[in-house]
């Protein structure tokens, strides 16, 4: 099963995923023309600030299974695409009751008119996994835009294994005093982020 996996320690808060998502879900698909479209296209990924300054996390639909939003949707507008294993919304069936938003564990549902104007009224909008791109064997727009590998598209178990191997290396090198494997965060980025933690600690006393 392929997914967009998040490495939170990598996110530097540039929000380029939001921009790429918005363009991808615009009528024109063009970054300049998208700015002038009506209704305005909307991002389905949201980079939220973390607990201390200089930390952040990209929040998007995790395409849960079973999906709470799908379970509570009274009109059956939310369904699962069997081929790509993605949770999708049929906008025409959506009655904007917001039940999906109430039960979503990640608060990723937003309500806007769709960029293609079908239908023109406000409906529930969320990540569609860039299903058209994935069908073309391309990665989702957010993962493509992310140059720091905070968002990575791939087989879920492969991506989990990368982290597990890294963890294991770190633990084993600690007990055997071997040189640790490359840390996920280089020293200069860690120094940059340390200021944010320090500034936050000072503010919070």
């Amino acid at each position, binding site marked *: 099963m392929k997914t967009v996996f998040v490495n939170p320690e990598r996110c530097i808060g540039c929000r380029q995923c939001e921009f790429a998502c918005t363009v991808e879900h615009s009528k024109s698909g063009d970054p300049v023309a998208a700015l002038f479209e009506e209704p305005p296209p909307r991002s389905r990924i949201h980079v939220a600030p973390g607990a201390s300054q*200089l*930390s*952040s996390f990209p929040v998007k639909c995790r395409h849960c299974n079973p999906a709470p939003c799908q379970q509570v949707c009274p009109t059956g507008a939310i369904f699962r695409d069997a081929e790509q294993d993605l949770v999708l919304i049929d906008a025409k069936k959506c009655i904007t009751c917001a039940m999906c938003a109430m039960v979503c564990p990640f608060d990723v549902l937003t309500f806007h008119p769709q960029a293609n104007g079908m239908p023109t009224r406000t409906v529930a909008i969320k990540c569609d996994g860039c299903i058209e791109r994935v069908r073309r064997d391309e990665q989702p727009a957010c993962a493509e835009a992310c*140059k*720091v*590998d905070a968002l990575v598209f791939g087989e879920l178990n492969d991506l989990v294994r990368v982290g597990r191997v890294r963890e294991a290396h770190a633990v084993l090198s600690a007990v055997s005093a071997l040189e640790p494997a490359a840390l*996920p965060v280089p020293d200069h980025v860690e120094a*940059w982020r340390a200021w944010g933690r320090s500034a936050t600690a*000072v503010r919070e006393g």
Partner: protein
Amino acid sequence: MAHDTDINGLSINKDARAMIARARDEGVETVWDRLAAQQPQCGYCAMGVSCRNCAMGPCRIDPFGEGPQKGVCGADADVIVARNLGRTIAAGASAHSDHGRDILEVFAELAEGKTSGYEIRDKDKLRALAGEWGIATEGREAFEIARDLAAAMMEDFGTRKSSLGFAARVPSQRIERWAELGITPRGIDRENVEMLHRTHMGVDNDYVNTLLHCLRTSLSDGWGGSMVATELSDVMFGTPKPVPSRVNLGALRPESVNIALHGHNPLLSDVIVQAAADPELVQLAKTKGAEGINLVGLCCTGNELQMRKGLPMAGNHLMQELVLLTGALDAMVVDYQCIMPAVTDVAKCFHTDVISTADKAKFTGATHISFDPRRGLEIGKEIVRRGVEAYGNRNPDRVRIPDETVEMMAGFSVEAILGALGGTPEPLVDAIKAGKIRGAVGVVGCNNPKIQQDYGHVMLTRRLIENDILVVVTGCSAIANGKAGQMMPKAAEMAGPGLREVCQALGIPPVLHMGSCVDNTRILVLAAALAKHLGVDICQLPLAGAAPEWYSEKAVSIGAYVVASGIYTVLGVQPPIFGSRNVVKLLAQDLDDVVGAKFAVEADPERAALLIRRHIEAKRKALGLEFRDV
């Protein structure tokens, strides 16, 4: 607007907290709301590894090392970070130097007798400056001398010289070091233009070379543009002498027409002070039901006026929206720099008339009254009249003035400090040698909403004076320390025993107000005078600089010229350089071997105080003076 942040965490000040609470109650957006709305802020930009200098880009470097490591042109993180820092410094140095030029141009017109509302108030300083610049003074009228001095200073802005006029103030060891490094500033405008040239794609592709020009550009500000601004302001408006004043939002009076003077340049505000005393305008205010016309300062225009006239100070950078929220401000007169575009939005929620005055700094939503030095006093009166008229629109039910003012002292120019010492730096040098005063630190710079307002300034200063370190302050830091009650002679009680004794003997506060942010040059002049007196280089002295809450491009230029002049500097907010290990290493480590000083970054003022104390004691040890382990 989400308000999940505790107001107490945003500012240490009672007046600020009260007004932030009011803003929240009434749905008025302030700087803290906008900072929250901007979270998270882009890490590429915050680390300095994004570049939009050309149309092959924009580009960014993955600081984690796996994504792109070069821009389209081939620039790596080192080159991009250095270029970005260079442009930041060029912008900051240009701001100060353009301010200096504006003062110089009015000074030149004054010398030609073409201005209204200006005079040469300090003829002694004019003659002393002329002497420094090699201009004959014997038997000549002040206006003649001024004409020649203005012409000579204008040459410093151009390209016809190999070194600035004020370089004569710099100790010879430092001049030699600059010459060896090729960073002697040649022309004020020239270094800025050259920086823009160098940072164009395909010019200076060596980060070390770019960073050296960063220092040269900043020196053209510190020993050039800013110094011209300070020195000529003294000649035209008077050299500051110790003067009592008051500070915080309590400076506004419920029964008076309140006019705030905000920005940086004293050219207009000085004539407004004259205009506000005009009997006709005072009478007009009384017919409107006011007791009189009350002028208050904000930011560095406020500092210029407080230093010379004791004008009460409403607040520093982060108070500019909050002063409007009192509902008691009738007019905010702005010149330029650090004036948030947001002030006109906040002003719309009240009756306040925002009046812009500089043709290079207009604000949508403000009334623009173009400043012309030839009609200075006339324009000053027109502006004050508008403030009086706006008072008629004030709703007394919406007035909230949150606190009583705090007493502070201002006016410690180099001349005033030397005066307090009996005309020579000898007593200060003796106190340092004896260890009563361990050293001196300039705590300067802005406010930044990323830091609890004034906490960085006040806590760092407190820790330094407690440890017998004399503190000199300018800009927002002076206002913060004034509000904290650390700038009265009685604050000597807060100081360590040695500093306390010296302050009490001289009747001075342990924290001395040296002026606005262009007046950081006063600190350079004092440091140079001390070094020359001892026959050493500035970098050998037990001195340091700190900018605990800086935000502006000007502050980066100041930090760079202070370090390039040989003074270790601790920044409370990190500059956008952490995307390049090499740039960080050069600025925070290797620079010490090159210019005898370096930068440090430390958000916590308690820890910053320790860094500075260690540095000062190390410098004492190197000079063969008694030293302490910190």
